[in-house]
């Protein structure tokens, strides 16, 4: 179980506190994560994507992740692991 700290919301609570979007990288570098959300044949799509990206850039390291189901949001642990290991991600979403 993830350790957690409880803090009190310092805002007026009119809106949920959301993360700000990270800046989109201008080029591929570092570690790129490919997340398969477990839709049918999503794994095949991600495999093809990985091959294409590897050809396009030999300096980028690719890491593969797979959510257990597409029907639920990613668990905290999963998100934290991806965020720790990757500089950017591609998430395969649609059918």
């Amino acid at each position: 179980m993830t350790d957690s700290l409880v803090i009190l919301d310092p805002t007026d609570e009119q809106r949920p506190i959301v993360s700000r979007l990270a800046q989109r990288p201008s080029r591929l570098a570092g570690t790129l994560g490919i997340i398969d959300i477990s839709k049918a044949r999503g794994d095949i799509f991600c495999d093809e994507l990985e091959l294409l990206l590897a050809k396009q850039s030999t300096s980028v390291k690719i890491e593969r992740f797979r959510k257990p189901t597409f029907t639920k949001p990613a668990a905290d642990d999963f998100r934290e692991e991806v965020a720790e290991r990757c500089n950017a991600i591609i998430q395969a979403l649609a059918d």
Partner: protein
Amino acid sequence: MSRLPDAGNVSPSFTLMDLAEISCDFGQTFDHPAYLLFFVKKDCETCTLVAPVVEQIHQTLSAHGLKVLTISQSNKVDTQKFIKDTGLTTTILLDQNLYVSDDYGFDAVPTFVLTNETGTILKTFEGWSQNSFNELLEKSVKILNTKLTQFETSILVLPDWLPGCASRVHDPDTARRLAVRRGDERLAARRIRVPVKTEKDEFEFLFNRGLTDGLPVVPPTEKRVLKMLDGTSRPATDVVAHVPPNLSPVTVEKIAINAVMAGCRPEYIPVVIAAVEAVCTDTFNLHGVLATTYFVGPVIIVNGPIRHDINLNCGRNLFGQGTRANATIGRALQLIVRNIGGGKPGEVDMSTFGQPGKFTCCIGEFEERSCWDPLHVERGFKVKQNTVTVFAGEAPRAIRDQRSRSASSLATSLGLSLESVAHVKLHGMGEVLLVVSPEHNQTFARGGYTKDTLRERIQEVTSRPLSELLPDPNCEKGTPLSVLPREWKTSDNSVTEQALSQSFPKFLDSKDILITVAGGEAGKFSAVVGGWAAGGLGSSAVTREIQF
């Protein structure tokens, strides 16, 4: 205040360990006709004195079904010493985390709780009272269907009344821990669970969610916020103000949360509350101060004895870094404007340049080094009253005069320097804050200059013919016609011939030259903090008394 349940209520159930680390339940099943709970701690004289009486009850009435549980707030070793000193042979249970004591809610030990066979309370009392004890005894023998014969001798050696000792639940840090466990009703704010894998995560979390001013903030845990709330007697649910630009209500609790984030100590929170009240007035016009492209922010000036109570800097390095009260009070206000009011750069905050004072700007007046009435006295308060004055100000700028020996010369110097506030040709301005250093103030004291004399001299020195102040081909900036007296203007919105030769001072009203004395005792400089738009269209300084 004691929350010990009265007779007729059900006693809270619990599970505690005894000295042999065997678990003992109370309140799940009842196999005795009556129970006596005796709460104690070591180093409580009264507990030690009355323990033999409790022992006697145990010896006499256990055979009739009374179960005596001595519940100690001390650790195992101290409890064992207490047992040795008092000779108690009852069941001894350890309430080291004080949850059971907190559930029973008493303020003092010893505390006695007598219950019947279903856990319903028959009698309670705290400390020692002969009468209360007699009553407890009476109820015990009644419920046990027996008679008393052997007690009188030992009871007679005890006074009619003895005070208890404070229950350990009131130890400061313990009280807050227990309040968090109880879900202290003072804390109504939404809880946010921050996943923490490394020690930096909670700081990054707060950064990533736009809740900081760019510097790390102290994570506002429940315990820290409860501690902050101890700094004021105002209820946590009090709505202090509605904060622009969103006009969101800010409670004392929300102020405390942001004050924790800023790094305030609890004794600073009354100052922060007063500052929030002051900036949220129509007179101060925080919305305008925030939304303008000009670069002003609230400058907080504190007067009164509180300056010393909270070690607020009034002297050397006045506007600079290093003093916690100065740094964090101003910062708390800015975080409230951001997090509650929604005033963020790039959104409603349209300031072209901003300025460092928008991180924090809080100073104290050096009243003890001034020959004049302090700022708050001029503004209608008594010298011993604690106040904040908020002023919409630029960053401070230096006025260097290390040569003037006479008050008249120094006043001339300050006036000439003040003409450059905002723009030399911009006259008829609104408020300005002049911070006179102690050395400069001494020069005025020697020359018998009052604040009003200084103001008059500033206006005199800055007065120029209107013809020099209007836009011209060389410099299209000038004093706007809107600030000129009506009689100087023509019907077609120009100026009359006669007006051109009239002298017009820098400030529309000399009373708008706010003067305070502060800064280090060495240095023949003063500081000017320029203001924003005048009066009804802009912002005017507001002074509020600090309430505790």
